[in-house]
């Protein structure tokens, strides 16, 4: 974590690189999306640990960009199936300070959530001012430190909100509400019972659980909750925001004004604030041990973030009352998946196709659903938005058993089942390899208005 560990990661990469050069090396340059340059180095991996290919894309560059790495994670500890996680490095500072800062590597780059969430240990040297809930009689919200219980499908993160300046590349989001994820060892506030229920299988409160030091949510909305959080009436589901009038116990569900909620950091940048583009290199069939790409802020605001004329734009359903809210549609063969989305925070292509075997020998258990076809499968899918735009996407699937038998961390051909008759096609990180994917932010200045994807 922070700068010392960052150097350690750098040393590992250099070591791996030397081994690759010594081995049988094949390098080639290929063009990818205009002026992009892709370098692939394939090594034979001499004695010692297995080393897979390192693949990188070096452009776009500039102050509105930063590097993305897909590697084996902050602990560098291989864990089966924990792959395809894109990371960036960010700097967190006390508001207005130029020197009270920490630099944090292995922050999970997530287009499927909104807001910057960071483990308490990673920002321990800083004293960040808490965000307070305004007392509100209508919603029975007391004044106190604001906290959030942010749930995933399984697991949740819990912890208070604080103000910080967040710097990524050359960009700064000033006085941004961020979430300090309470570590198991030193929770400031007891986890509410409803949050424990929302977490189902448990809280994610460690580097191991998150496989990251923090989460950088740069999805297509500007803040992370609508009507239920504004009114504080979390009926039909689990509460998100809490007011904590006293430590260590005593957090109660709270109404939360929009500007105090967790914010999309990109929307708070000065100029390049209307979206992102993610550029990742194409991968060899069995993946790469390290893939490096670029995260670029802003769309159409600089020379390096213009949408190519060949790109197609897919408008996302922005009606919260619609059953396909925030989704597009995917068709593969005769089957249509009306609830489809593109998400850097999902680590495979997830969809329902019962003709593909999920009988994998490397993963077992009632919840494992990787695809393990007996040969590489090729697919052609049609992506469609609600306004008549369609486009073809080709992809292939390789057995998860074969992929996980390598020492690699990045796989373009990894897929899994969403379960029989599920309506979703999840275009996770494999979709991003070999593409430049634009994700607009709803409500920001942009023509046409977001939310949409383009690639």
């Amino acid at each position, binding site marked *: 974590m922070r700068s010392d560990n960052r150097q350690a990661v750098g040393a590992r990469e250099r070591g791996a690189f030397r081994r690759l050069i010594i081995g049988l090396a094949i390098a080639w340059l290929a063009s990818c999306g205009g002026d992009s340059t892709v370098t692939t180095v394939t090594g034979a991996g001499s004695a010692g640990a297995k080393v897979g290919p390192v693949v990188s894309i070096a452009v776009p560059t500039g102050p509105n960009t930063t590097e993305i790495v897909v590697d084996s994670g902050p602990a560098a500890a291989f864990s089966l199936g924990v792959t395809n996680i894109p990371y960036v490095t960010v700097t967190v500072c006390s508001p207005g300070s130029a020197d009270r800062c920490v630099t944090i590597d292995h922050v999970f780059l997530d287009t499927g959530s909104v807001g910057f969430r960071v483990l308490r240990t990673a920002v321990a040297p800083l004293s960040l001012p808490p965000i307070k809930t305004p007392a509100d009689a209508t919603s029975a919200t007391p004044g106190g430190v604001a906290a959030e219980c942010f749930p995933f499908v399984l697991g949740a993160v819990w912890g208070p909100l604080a103000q910080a300046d967040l710097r990524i590349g050359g960009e700064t989001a000033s006085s941004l509400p961020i979430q300090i994820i309470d570590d198991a060892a030193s929770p400031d506030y007891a986890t*509410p019972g409803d949050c424990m229920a929302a977490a189902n299988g448990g809280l994610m409160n460690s580097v191991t659980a998150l*496989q990251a030091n923090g989460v950088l949510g740069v999805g297509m909305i500007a803040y992370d909750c609508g*009507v239920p959080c504004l009114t504080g009436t979390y009926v039909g*589901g689990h509460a998100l925001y809490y007011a904590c009038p006293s430590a260590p*116990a005593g957090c*109660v569900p709270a109404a939360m004004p929009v500007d105090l909620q967790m914010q999309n950091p990109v929307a708070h940048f000065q100029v390049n604030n209307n979206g992102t583009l993610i550029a990742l290199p194409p991968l060899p069939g069995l993946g790469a041990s390290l893939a490096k790409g670029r995260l670029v802020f802003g769309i159409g605001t600089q020379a390096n973030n213009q949408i190519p004329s060949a790109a197609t734009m897919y408008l996302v359903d922005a*009606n919260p009352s619609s059953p396909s*809210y925030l989704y597009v549609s995917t068709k593969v063969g005769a089957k249509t998946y009306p609830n489809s989305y593109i998400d850097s*925070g999902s680590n495979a292509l997830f969809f329902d196709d019962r003709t593909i075997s999920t009988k994998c020998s490397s993963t077992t258990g009632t*919840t494992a659903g990787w695809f393990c076809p007996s040969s590489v499968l090729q697919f052609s899918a049609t992506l469609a938005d609600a306004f008549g735009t369609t486009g073809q996407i080709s992809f292939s699937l390789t057995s998860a058993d074969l992929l996980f038998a390598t020492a690699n961390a990045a796989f373009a051909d990894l897929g899994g089942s969403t379960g029989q008759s599920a309506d979703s096609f999840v275009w996770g990180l494999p979709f991003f390899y070999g593409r430049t994917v634009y994700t607009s932010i709803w409500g920001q200045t942009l023509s046409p208005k977001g939310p949409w994807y383009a690639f």
Partner: protein
Amino acid sequence: MIRTEKHPMAGADPERAGANQAARRGRRLRLRAHRGLQRAAVAAVKRVFSPLGVALCALLLHASAALAVLGGSLATVQEDHLRIGGEWRLRAAAQPTYQVHEIVLPDGAAMRQFASADGVVFAIAWNTRLKPDLQRLLGSHYADFEAAAREAMTRPGIKRNLVMHQRDLVVHSISHLNAFVGKAYVPSLVPAGVNPDEIR
């Protein structure tokens, strides 16, 4: 519903204050919900003038203390509506062997319960802005879900997609931004001839 009162660490004064506030909020919502429910029930009588429909309305008009949903009776549908509020409606089912009860909230969230002819809820499906309270929705089957969830959580990484088949329970669940989509069903309770594809 907010379950502050069931917080295992409840006891500190602010906790109790929170529980009381939550309870007051709940009462207000229930009063509103009940008026809406009566209107919905009358509409349902007009719409579904069948013995089953009348039986359903009788259930809807008489409060029940029943909790939980999956594997429970139709009364639990009513309980859910009373608790949650929103608009209740019967949706067209793909087959005559079951009914689909839907609760739609002002934020666009929809929760559906699938009941067989004998009045047993054999499946639920959701498309919500908040993560649904599965402990409540899965009822007696929650323990199976939790066991599978704990197993899944031993594998690190953020989970945005879950498939589980544990004993007599199937759950599919995904989330993206603030859109949670999923379903759960009890295979042994699914009426003969009903394809799980119809549960959505």
